[in-house]
Structure formats: C-alpha cells, structure tokens
C-alpha cells in the first residue's frame, strides 16, 4: 500500500535509497522480458541519498523517495526523450517539463523513461522502434498503448507511480489491459509544457498507479495552472487523496454498449449494478447518441495536428527527418494529416470532425445534468497477441470508448474491475470537467468492491 510506504519512508523505516535500489534490482532482473523501460536514470541512487538527507531533516516533499517512471515523450532534463522513435533516439532533454519540475519539487525520483508507441501513435504498444512492450499479466498479449511502458512498469512492480499521456485513451487503454489505475485529467488541468505532442487540442498528461490513492496523490502534485501552457485553467484543486464514499447518480449508455464486445459490456454492467447496490447509488440510462462518431471525428483531428506538430522534426535543429526515420503507423498519420490539409478547403475532414466533437461534448453536457458520473468499460475488446494481423480501423476501434472523454474535455479514470479469460478489464468512470474529486471517489468505491 502506497500510503503506508510513504509513512515508512517519513519515519525512516524505509530509506529512499532502499526503495530505489529495490526497483532498480527488479528492473534489471525482470525488464528483459517486459521491455517497459527505454532508459534508466543513472543518477537515481545519488538523488535518493540526497532525499534521505532531507527526510532526516524533516524537510522532504510529498513524494519523497518514491520511484516515478516517465513516458518517453515528456522532457526530463538530461534524459532521452526519444518518443520511442529513431527520429529522436539521440535527443537529450535540455529542460524539465512542468510536471517533472513539480515532481522534483516534491522529492519524487525519476527512475527511468518508459517505452511507448512511437510518437504516441498506437493503441497496442507494438509500434515502438525499441520493440514492443509485453503485458506483464500475459506476456504474449499487447499491454495496450500508447503509454505501454508506464502501464507495464506499474503492473510489473517496477516503480511506485508512472506518468503517461492520453490523447484518445493512451493512459486508460493500457491501464485496462495491464490491470492498473490510469487517469486522464480534464483538458487544461495539467500543464502540457514539455510534452512532445501528438494532438495538442486533446493531449493530457496523467498518472498510473496500483491504487486510486497513488494516482490521486500524483494528480494533486501535477495539476495546476501553468503560465507556460496557455490552455491550463486556474481552478481550485481539492485534496484528491481524501477518498470518500459519496451518494451518486450513475449513468450508463446503450450508445456505448453498441460499440463494445457483448461479453465485456454485460460483465461490466453487472459489476456496476453490484457496486451501485452496495453504495446505494442510483443507476439511470443516458443518451450519448453521437459517441458512435468518436473514432471518425478523432482521427482527422489527430492526423492533422500530428502532421503539424511533426514539421519541426526536419533534421535541421535536432534528430533525424521524421519521414526517413519513422515506422509505418507514424508515417500513415503524417501522410493522412498532409492529405487532409491539402483537401481541407472543402471542409470535409477537419471542419466536419470539429462539428462532431462539439456534438459529442454537448451530449455529455446534457447527460451530466442528470447524472454525476458516467460509466462504461474502458476498452471494447480484449487485447490481441503481439504481432497479430490487424487492420488500422480495427486498431483505432480499441479507443472507441475512451476517445469521447478526450473530445468532450472531461476527466476519466480506468479502474481494474473484472477478469475475462484471465485478462484484466477496466471500468471507465467519467466525470464532468474539473470534477476529478468525484471521479476518484467513485473509482475508490470500485476499488473496494
């Protein structure tokens, strides 16, 4: 239990150095089979010793001595931020992303940079130029993506908390497949400064942890307005870690049911009904009639914004020219984005997608007038075997249930709640924008069930 571990570190029963040495040993012995990390922080033990001195003086921060793994698209000064691509394989971050600065201010120790789908383009963890990440629960299966290494690192017990980024489900999807907690914060809650973007209007950095408490603790540290990211909001941040069991009205939607494997949806619905009964929550149906357009709206937006974001990777200032160094999925998105940009004078792609995005957001706004939270399974199907043949639209379908939250700008958490064929299946809990406290409280109820 993380809360108890933090207490032990504060009381000197466990040193930061011991904690870090434990994880480094485990990574050394076991990560060869998982491939969760791309780079380990060589200074981690030195940093832990410094933090131990602060702990002894009673001046340590809230994350003192904890091992934090970071997705390879977030800048950590002195570490590689390769985005799991040959394009940036030699790129060393010259600065800390805002989230990293805040973690360091609270004495968290960055243990290493995790594997991911190349430039976050993927939902399976297979598109990394460093080789696929394996699912620690069943290593022949995909762990999900794109934050594959961060989810796997938590599931394998390689760190205390990890950071990922979520554009259409890249935190929640691997959290579901690996059986861990994953949080996509509301758009504008967490600074994106220092995140190498996939789609800037949708990206959010968020935490992975074994328990809701760990994710809540991390979000409390990283959530705040940042002058370096104009899209962040100045909202009141409550203490997310004070988890309570509240009385809630829960919404489920048949519009999600239509997008989901029947067995997964039925089992999830059964679980939700059980939890509602236990907690005396009211369960009602809500109408989200445009969510069936989420995938089709998301990809044009993502393709174009990614195409635009990658124009800086021209090999002149750093790295290699992306089109010469990347794998097929990244290239497909660059080509797709370029095609849309060329054809957009007809307004068929990007403008239509923006309209669908707005309709989806309105559906959620209406639904949240009737309910406190909306629940669905996190991923509509079980993970495939690594290397299995799968077409792009099937792959994009993995995110059919997670994309709507990104398009609507709301917050969502995946909590491991079921096992089907011995594979973990997460339940997704969505709450209105900036209602993360309510989302964590509901997540905690599922955790206890």
């Amino acid at each position, binding site marked *: 239990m993380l809360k108890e571990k933090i207490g032990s570190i504060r009381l000197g029963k466990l040193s930061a150095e011991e904690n870090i040495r434990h994880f480094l040993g485990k990574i050394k012995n076991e990560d060869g089979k998982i491939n969760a990390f791309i780079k380990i922080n060589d200074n981690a033990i030195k940093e832990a010793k410094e933090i131990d001195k602060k702990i002894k003086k009673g001046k340590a921060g809230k994350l003192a001595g904890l091992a934090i793994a970071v997705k390879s698209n977030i800048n950590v000064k002195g570490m590689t931020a390769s985005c799991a691509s040959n394009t940036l394989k030699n790129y060393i971050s010259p600065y800390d992303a805002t989230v990293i600065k805040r973690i360091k201010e609270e004495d968290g120790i960055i243990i290493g940079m995790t594997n991911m789908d190349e430039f976050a383009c993927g939902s399976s963890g297979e598109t990394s130029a460093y080789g696929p990440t394996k699912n620690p629960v069943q290593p022949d299966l995909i762990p999900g993506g794109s934050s594959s290494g961060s989810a796997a690192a938590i599931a394998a017990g390689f760190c205390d908390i990890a950071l990922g980024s979520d554009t259409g489900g890249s935190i929640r999807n691997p959290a579901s497949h690996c059986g861990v907690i994953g949080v996509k914060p509301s758009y504008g809650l967490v600074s994106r400064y220092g995140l190498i973007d996939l789609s800037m209007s949708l990206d959010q950095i968020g935490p992975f942890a074994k328990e809701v408490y760990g994710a809540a603790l991390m979000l409390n540290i990283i959530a705040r307005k940042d002058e370096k990211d104009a899209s962040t909001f100045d909202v009141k941040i409550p203490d997310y870690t004070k988890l309570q069991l509240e009385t809630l009205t829960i919404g489920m939607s048949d519009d999600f049911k239509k997008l989901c494997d029947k067995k997964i949806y039925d089992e999830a619905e059964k679980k939700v009904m059980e939890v509602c009964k236990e907690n005396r929550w009211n369960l009602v149906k809500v109408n989200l009639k445009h969510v069936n357009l989420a995938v089709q709206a998301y990809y044009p937006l993502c393709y174009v914004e990614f195409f635009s974001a990658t124009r800086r990777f021209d090999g002149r200032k750093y790295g290699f020219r992306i089109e010469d160094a990347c794998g097929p999925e990244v290239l497909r998105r660059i080509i*797709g984005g370029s095609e849309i940009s060329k054809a957009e004078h007809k307004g068929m792609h990007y403008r239509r997608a923006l309209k669908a995005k707005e309709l989806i957001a309105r559906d959620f706004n209406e639904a949240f007038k009737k309910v406190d939270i909306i629940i669905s399974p996190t991923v509509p199907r079980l993970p495939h075997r690594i290397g299995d043949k799968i077409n792009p639209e099937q792959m994009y379908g993995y995110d059919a249930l997670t994309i709507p939250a990104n398009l609507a700008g709301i917050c969502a958490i995946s909590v491991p709640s079921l096992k089907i064929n011995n594979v973990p299946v997460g339940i997704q809990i969505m709450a209105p924008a900036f209602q993360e406290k309510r989302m964590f409280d509901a997540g905690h109820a599922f955790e206890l069930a």
Partner: protein
Amino acid sequence: MIENFLWRKVSDEEKSELKKEAKQIIDRFADALKKVESEISETGLVKRDKNARDETANECDQEFRKIFLKNAPKTEKNEKGEFISTEKGAWK
C-alpha cells in the same frame, strides 16, 4: 499490405501503399461524419456573429498592433492602413 503494427523500416512500396490507405481511411471517416453537417452549423463552433471580424478589427489594441507590425519583416500600406506582407508572388 500491412500485416501488423510492429515497427519496421518503411520501404518505398509500403510508403505508396500507406498513402493510398491513409486516403481511404480519411475519406471513409469523412463519409461517416456527413450527417453532422445537418445537425450543427458552423456558428455553433466558433460563436461569432456575422460582423464579428470587423468589430474585432476596430477594437484592436493599438499598442499590440504597433509592436506586431514592428516585428514583421515586411509591411506595406494601403488606404486602410499598414499591414503585414508575408508573401508576394511574381505576378505582382
């Protein structure tokens, strides 16, 4: 044709296949989104009234405008005032 999603170096043949495939995907998605055209107008997206552009131009912060024009590598003037000249074709 792409077999799976594992990373590999992209051949020229695969590159042209990807181009074809990307175009098919975006066209299919655009077709699926056709129905939104009748459900929402563009004004709902950007929330501006008919004359918003002119009004905004009239309300422009003059200090901002001055600095902005000073930053620009090339400006020109016409009867409406000074403006930034970003590109000039051989036809002019």
